[in-house]
């Protein structure tokens, strides 16, 4: 009896040790992820901070690192954001609203649904090739901002649709019933109640999707966004460059100075991205408070 019990106790101690080690392993690995992010940010900052000045932001790219800047890339990226937003937000939100509120839940809706989730998994470079074949060559839009914005819109549409649908789904059924019972049609209900109630969620999803678009490089390379652009685009049909393209261009050069310039560009890009994400979170929290 006694020896049996003792054995059991030993066993339990070993099992507890195992559990403790496993727990420490999991925690360690998780913090390693956070650590990697820290290393990445530190590395970028250390390399790039000394190049970040007014001259860097207001100069065109140059063969000479000390004269080079991101003016055309930054302006190109801003053009892209606005144009992508104008194309993708109305279409994406309209699709989500149609699928959730208006369509009869039949085969057509199911087909679109499956289709969208598969589109979300298509590699971005494939969108680039399609953009090249349709917008640049097929429709003859050339290597313009418009081609870039349309290609990117196709890329983020599934993301916007999925996020908007999730936001719309969180609107309580009772609100819709209240509106229907007053003799409202589906569209009146969707427009006056469902859309406003899901607005914060949609906005958050849209901003996150847009921030994905401005970091994407591969599709823009495919449609041939120029890497040396010493002018500012003045309209949607002008050729352009964008921040990630400029960064890619600098990283792929062998000289150390250009790598540091790339780091400078990355800092600007990350600041833009973080600002957008922070805005999304801020808007969400503010509207949530208002609703409560």
């Amino acid at each position, binding site marked *: 009896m006694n020896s049996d019990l003792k054995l059991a106790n030993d066993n339990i101690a070993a*099992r507890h040790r*195992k*559990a403790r080690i*496993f*727990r420490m392993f*999991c*925690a360690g*690995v*998780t913090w*390693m*992820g*956070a650590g990697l992010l820290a*290393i*990445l940010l530190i*590395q*970028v900052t250390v390399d790039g901070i000394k190049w970040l000045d007014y001259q860097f932001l207001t100069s065109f790219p140059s063969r000479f690192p000390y004269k080079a800047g991101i003016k055309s890339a930054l302006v190109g990226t801003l053009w892209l954001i606005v144009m992508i937003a104008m194309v993708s937000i*109305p279409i994406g939100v*309209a699709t989500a*609203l*149609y*699928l959730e509120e208006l*369509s009869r839940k039949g085969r057509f809706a199911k*087909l*679109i649904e499956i289709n*969208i989730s*598969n*589109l979300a*998994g*298509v*590699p*971005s*470079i*494939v969108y680039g*090739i*399609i953009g090249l*074949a349709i917008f640049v060559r097929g429709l003859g839009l050339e290597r313009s901002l418009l081609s870039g914005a349309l290609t990117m819109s*196709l890329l983020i*549409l599934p993301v916007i*649709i999925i996020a908007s649908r999730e936001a719309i789904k969180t609107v309580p059924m009772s609100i819709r019933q209240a509106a229907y019972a007053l003799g409202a*049609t*589906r569209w*009146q209900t969707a427009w006056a109640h469902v859309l406003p109630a899901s607005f914060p969620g949609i906005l958050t999803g849209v901003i*996150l999707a847009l921030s994905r678009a401005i*970091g*994407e*490089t*591969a599709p823009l*390379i*495919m449609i*041939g966004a120029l890497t040396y652009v010493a002018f500012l685009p003045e309209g949607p049909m002008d050729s352009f460059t964008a921040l*990630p393209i400029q*960064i*890619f261009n600098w*990283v792929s050069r062998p000289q150390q100075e250009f*790598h540091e310039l*790339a780091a400078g560009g*990355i800092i600007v890009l*990350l600041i833009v*991205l973080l600002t957008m*994400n922070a805005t999304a979170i801020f808007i969400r929290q503010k509207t949530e408070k208002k609703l409560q």
Partner: protein
Amino acid sequence: MSSSKSVDMQQMRDIDITKKKVRWGEWMIESSLALCATISVVTTAVIIFILAKESMGFFQVVVPADFFFGTSWVPLLEPSSYGVLPLLWGTLLITFGAALFAIPTGLASAIYLSEYASPRTRSIVKPVLEVLAGIPTVVYGYFALTFVTPLLRMLMPELQVFNALSGAIVVGIMILPTIATLSDNALRAVPDSLRQGAYALGATSYEVTTRVVVPAGLSGVMASFLLAISRAIGETMAVTLAAGATPNLSFTFLESIQTMTAYIVQVSMGDTPAGGIAYQTLFAVAAFLFVITLILNIVSQWILSKFREEYE
């Protein structure tokens, strides 16, 4: 009695409920929304049509067997050769290396987040992982080239400047958050009653996690692996920058290789005229890439939909 009702109301209401109104305004709105919804279907159709059409042109010049089983990829120089295996191999090498890194770490992070972390820790760590997922891939390329590779070369002097190892590591870092957050969702969906049942039998937290929680959430975890792998296969910028542009069929992480995506970038950087065989190789490779990722996505969605049935 109805005389007590206001005159305004009487005008407003159509007392005759049989008069079925055709609401033209709403019909127009609904139709245009439906039109927006079809854009996604059209996009898919266009992707498939264009990839198929240009690949068809490619396969009129190159025998499919030579493409799928050829071991040499020299498309831009004479004598040309169009065996996709070296590119596929490069992609697989990167994906394999990335998965080797990201699957254990991602799963461990997911377990930590769902089973061990306090709500407060969770609320810090999860956004950090999401930020990691939101960093543009070109930044990872920069990180590989200026940090990971130099570091590795200090340890392994024989390592080439462009090498598969560094590419695999950064792609691994990139897909880690995907695995961690999606697996975390899957593990958290496992009902608490299962955990409590196991604890009540005297199991330790390690035993509960590895023998009860992870097996119960396995389908969701597997789906996250597949999605992450599909992302790794489609990943472009980091491998273009870090792993080089040398189609290579040898099993080595130390040399320069070329992935399918990196090849597409390489060709499109030059000004390829439309219609030529070089232009068509882009579509053949992209079509191959599209099919592989599509299959992975469909399988992972299928697994996920089965998973939903289990707990809802």
